[in-house]
């Protein structure tokens, strides 16, 4: 039954082409001979029409080294040793598309064949091959629309005991697929010639080995058809369409869950979800984030329709935060397990803790949990943690006080109730039905607001009405209708093609003999138009073209740089071999990118493999900068006029207080590093008639005059300041500024920042002497003045793209303390973060909320708009505006201004569709 596998040797029997230094293969077809220097497409045009190009192997000897190392690592594992020893190292690289006429139109994907290259291809295979643990091969006739599980069953009689399969398609692409009812998901088909590796769970083959093996299989080309009938299994039935991805949905509380109860499930990192849910008397507006794969967190506003907010006539509004941590990922035996807190830092009205597990069986996802607090109000069981001490047996009242505190003394205390249920993914795409048993007893509702409850069983459905929109409806408590709408988006994949940008300058092979009669002026203009950057100087120096760029802003800097290069190439004489682009912002030189022109040209005209790929873009340390002649930088004024909108949510006067207006922003540059900037805002429409409330405060009123500042004048000057920035030495930067620094404060200030180039660490200090501005936001000042400033450490942890910022100093109310800020920044530049400030102000003096805290999302406009933009949308939620822990909102911050020194400055890019590129390693 065993068939030794020498796939390349077999393939070589069919069509083989290797030039002189290729591996020793037999029977080279005359038509298959490579002519060094010809394109792959030309070689293909000489081949038989029935050649299976999808499985074509293009190999280069230089790429064998890495693959040899991969094979060595696999052999070290001691699994499949005999088979691996006989498997050749091929040096295979990816071919983007097996279509001759397409390759001809895409020279970047059409390799120019070289001496030593090898090409191997044969007729279309008819089988799929399962590599078994003993090194034998099981060949199964290819069946359209059969999935990996079907082939495993065809070989082994059953797929039970095989949780996973690793699939290698004949073009080298790989995928890991679930074979069981707990891990089934939407799957690719299996092409003829594919390899499948599916060790039995009992064999306990390390997953790392399987991950590497499947990549190595990608270097082998299509699996060979059998030479004898004995190794052939029966063809499977097509069942691909039965594979389905588990569709998650939000609970009434915004987190992934059923109706009232949470589950252990989570979305992948980057997801953000907004859920509006209503069930009398509660309306929840939930905002949930998934900053890491194992952390779900968010906040909510809860309106209680039959209770009023303080002395007003408005519905009572509560604010709360949630956190859920995944403890365990589901496996064949173990459930997914999560630990969570609901309302962990609000007033504690709904404070709950829970532990919950999930196990999936096909279209059913079962959850079972234990709830404390609101989720366990039924109190059916005594607390199992009671064994650890009697203090766990009863749940103390939360220390609500001013709200907003972490009531650690109540966590996991008191009686518990079980909860759980099931979500069924119906055959109708997008429709999920839910049934749950909740642990809450509505006779213990907060605000003495008990509700009738006929049963603890709730039922409902979630319906995917649009790709990102879920509509949910259900019956809860046995007598109430629940409705909810959820909007879900994956921020980490946010991207929009730049359809409205200027058309990119097309690459041309032609190189001008000399510089054009207009000199470099047109080059600078087109470069500026292409990049959105200001080109301040351009000059040839030896074999280098030096290009000075200022205002090199925007998140996707590498993409902007890549748009400049074709412009420089188009106008540069042949003796220019390097483009040296100095990137500055506000006159602060921070980074230099050197482009190897001829390597770049080569990359435009042909693909290369990893081992032969030249370095095109070189990140040059600032100390090595070559500078062009300084250009006169004429003072220049700019302005923009745009609609403005500001709002206050969740206050006692109205849930939403808003103003619409027109905002004019102007700037006058005295030099590259000195500028005057200001904003004038005209409030056109608002609902400030409702704005009556001025929050009480025992502290200097540094922020709680919000109503007065907001309503005093329709025409305001939120900002008018003079700013100067300077670079002191290699890694030191300073700024000086004065004027109306923000809408509430005016004064002077300075900042120093030490930021080594490409370092994950930076340190800064800012000191400001400010006075409170007049409520009309004009040029007059009030009496209150303060010196405020902070020392700040910035740290890019390098762990899961998490950044940490710690600031300590004196705040606007004169209180002293620290602010800790965590954020996750995704590869498309979108970041999600949370911060908290604790100062020496006592909670009762701070007032409602106890301490300052908030969450934020920063989204580069580049990720959203069809036109390139340097701006970033900063969306920030703070539960309350209080006087403690309040910071000056400085308009210019050196850490932002020196973002070109960030280790990832040239890394952030728009999310591109995953497209195979010729030359990529099959295991990249």
């Amino acid at each position: 039954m065993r068939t030794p596998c020498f796939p390349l040797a077999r393939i070589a029997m069919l069509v083989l082409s290797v030039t002189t230094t290729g591996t020793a293969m037999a029977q080279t077809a005359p038509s298959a001979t490579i002519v060094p220097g010809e394109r792959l497409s030309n070689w293909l045009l000489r081949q038989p029409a029935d050649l299976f190009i999808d499985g074509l192997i293009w190999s280069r000897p230089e790429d064998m080294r890495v693959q040899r190392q991969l094979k060595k690592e696999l052999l070290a594992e001691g699994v499949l040793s005999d088979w691996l020893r006989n498997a050749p190292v091929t040096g295979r690289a990816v071919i983007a598309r097996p279509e001759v006429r397409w390759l001809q139109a895409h020279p970047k994907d059409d390799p120019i064949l070289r001496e030593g290259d090898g090409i191997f291809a044969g007729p279309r295979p008819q089988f799929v091959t399962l590599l078994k643990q003993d090194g034998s091969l099981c060949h199964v006739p290819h069946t359209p629309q059969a999935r990996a599980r079907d082939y495993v069953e065809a070989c082994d009689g059953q797929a039970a005991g095989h949780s996973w399969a690793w699939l290698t398609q004949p073009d080298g692409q790989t995928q890991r697929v679930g074979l069981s009812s707990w891990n089934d998901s939407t799957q690719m088909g299996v092409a003829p010639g594919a390899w499948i590796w599916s060790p039995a769970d009992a064999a306990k083959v390390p997953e790392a080995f399987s991950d590497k093996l499947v990549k190595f299989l990608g270097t082998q080309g299509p699996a060979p058809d059998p030479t004898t009938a004995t190794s052939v299994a029966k063809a499977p039935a097509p069942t691909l369409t039965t594979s389905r991805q588990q569709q998650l949905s939000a609970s009434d509380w915004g987190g992934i869950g059923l109706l009232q109860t949470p589950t252990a499930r989570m979305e992948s990192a980057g997801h953000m979800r907004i859920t509006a849910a209503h069930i009398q008397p509660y309306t929840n507006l939930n905002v949930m984030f998934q900053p890491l794969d194992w952390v779900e967190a968010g906040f909510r506003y809860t309106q209680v329709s039959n209770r009023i907010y303080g002395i007003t006539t408005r519905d009572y509004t509560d604010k709360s935060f949630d956190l859920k941590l995944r403890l365990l990922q589901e496996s064949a035996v173990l459930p997914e397990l999560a630990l969570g807190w609901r309302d962990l830092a609000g007033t504690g009205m709904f404070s709950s803790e829970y532990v919950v597990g999930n196990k999936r069986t096909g279209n059913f996802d079962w959850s079972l949990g234990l709830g404390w607090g609101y989720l366990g109000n039924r109190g059916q069981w005594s607390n199992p943690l009671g064994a650890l001490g009697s203090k766990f047996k009863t749940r103390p009242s939360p220390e609500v006080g001013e709200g907003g505190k972490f009531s650690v003394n109540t966590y996991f205390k008191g009686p518990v109730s079980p909860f759980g249920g099931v979500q069924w993914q119906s055959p109708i795409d997008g429709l999920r039905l839910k049934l749950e048993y909740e642990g809450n007893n509505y006779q213990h509702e907060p605000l003495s607001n008990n509700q009738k409850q006929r049963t603890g069983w709730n039922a409902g459905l979630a319906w995917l009405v649009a790709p990102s929109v879920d509509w949910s409806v259900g019956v809860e408590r046995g007598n109430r209708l629940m409705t909810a709408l959820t909007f879900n988006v994956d921020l980490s994949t946010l991207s929009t093609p730049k359809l409205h940008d200027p058309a990119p300058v097309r690459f041309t092979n032609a190189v001008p003999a000399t510089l054009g009669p207009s000199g470099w002026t047109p080059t600078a203009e087109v470069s500026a138009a292409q990049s959105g950057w200001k080109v301040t100087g351009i000059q040839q120096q030896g074999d280098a073209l030096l290009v000075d760029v200022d205002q090199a802003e925007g998140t996707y800097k590498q993409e902007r740089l890549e748009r400049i290069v074709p412009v420089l190439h188009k106008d540069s004489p042949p003796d220019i071999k390097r483009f040296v682009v100095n990137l500055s912002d506000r006159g602060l030189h921070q980074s230099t990118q050197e482009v190897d022109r001829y390597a770049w040209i080569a990359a435009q005209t042909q693909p290369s493999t990893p081992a032969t790929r030249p370095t095109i873009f070189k990140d040059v340390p600032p100390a090595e900068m070559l500078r062009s002649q300084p250009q006169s930088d004429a003072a220049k004024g700019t302005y923009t006029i745009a609609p403005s909108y500001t709002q206050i949510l969740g206050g006692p006067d109205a849930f939403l207080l808003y103003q619409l207006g027109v905002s004019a922003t102007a700037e006058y540059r005295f030099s590259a590093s000195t500028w005057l900037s200001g904003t004038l805002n005209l409030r056109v429409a608002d609902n400030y008639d409702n704005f009556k409330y001025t929050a009480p405060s025992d502290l200097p009123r540094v922020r709680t005059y919000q109503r007065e500042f907001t309503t005093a004048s329709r025409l305001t000057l939120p900002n008018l300041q003079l700013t100067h920035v300077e670079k002191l030495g290699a890694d030191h930067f300073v700024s000086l500024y004065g004027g109306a620094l923000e809408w509430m404060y005016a004064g002077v200030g300075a900042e120093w920042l030490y930021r080594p180039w490409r370092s994950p660490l930076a340190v800064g200090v800012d000191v400001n002497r400010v006075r409170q501005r007049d409520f009309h936001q004009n040029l007059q000042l009030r009496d209150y003045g303060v010196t405020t400033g902070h020392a700040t450490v910035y740290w890019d942890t390098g762990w899961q793209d998490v950044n940490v910022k710690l600031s300590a100093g004196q705040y606007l109310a004169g209180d002293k303390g620290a602010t800790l800020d965590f954020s996750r920044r995704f590869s498309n530049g979108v970041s999600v973060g949370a911060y908290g400030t604790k100062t020496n102000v006592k909670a009762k003096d701070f007032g409602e909320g106890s301490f300052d805290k908030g969450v934020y999302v920063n989204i580069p406009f580049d990720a959203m708009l069809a036109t390139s933009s340097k701006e970033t949308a900063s969306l920030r939620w703070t539960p309350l505006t209080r006087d403690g822990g309040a910071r000056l909102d400085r308009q210019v911050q050196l850490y932002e201004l020196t973002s070109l020194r960030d280790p990832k400055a040239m890394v952030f890019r728009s999310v591109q569709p995953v497209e195979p590129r010729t030359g990529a390693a099959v295991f990249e």
Partner: protein
Amino acid sequence: MYKHPAPPQVHRTPTVRMWLLFLAAVSALSGCTSTGQLWLKTAQAALHGGSNASEPTNTKYQYLRCIINGRTLFLAKGFTDETASGPIETWYSGGGEVIKLLNGRIVGTAGITPEWRNVRYSNVPSWDVMAAASPGPSSMSYTRTRDVMPGYLYGIQDEVQVIRLASSTPENMGSVVVEERMTSTAQPLPAALYRLQQQDGHWRVVASKQCLSERFCLTLEQWAPPPVPTK
């Protein structure tokens, strides 16, 4: 090789309208943040949408006008390869995407999602036979086998019934319209329509509507640049 000055592409591009909706929701929750620029720019981008390609003017090339989801672009013929099945025409979009036609039927696409590869037809009745057939249901059918990417759906087999429709509209005077319905397949597609006209003594496809998936259909129509007025 034909190169269009601007590269309108065949593939579908994500719309920003979804983000407009998202931003509306997000902005409605963003405390004291001025989002005016965000609104304005997003709205501008949303309103602009995708643009149509300008009409080519180079009379040296043969063109197909292609309409996808209301957007128009032009394909230029790059090659005609003689094969045992007949001449296969390769048509390029400005973005370098490829559509290959055999007697007006799609036999391959590249750079488009989805891609059809290795399309094989068997027992296809000729257009001349179809034009001579009586309008209405017929027993004529053929088998098509195709590989579809992405997804590695290799070897999908379609049984296609070919029906000549009655020509009733003025637009179709002098033409024959043929519909092709799939009677058996693992990947159902909407029916394809072909408008035939006689050229050089044979019936040929001058326009068609064909679908690569349930949601991705394109119309292809022979098109020639208007003649340049002589001075």
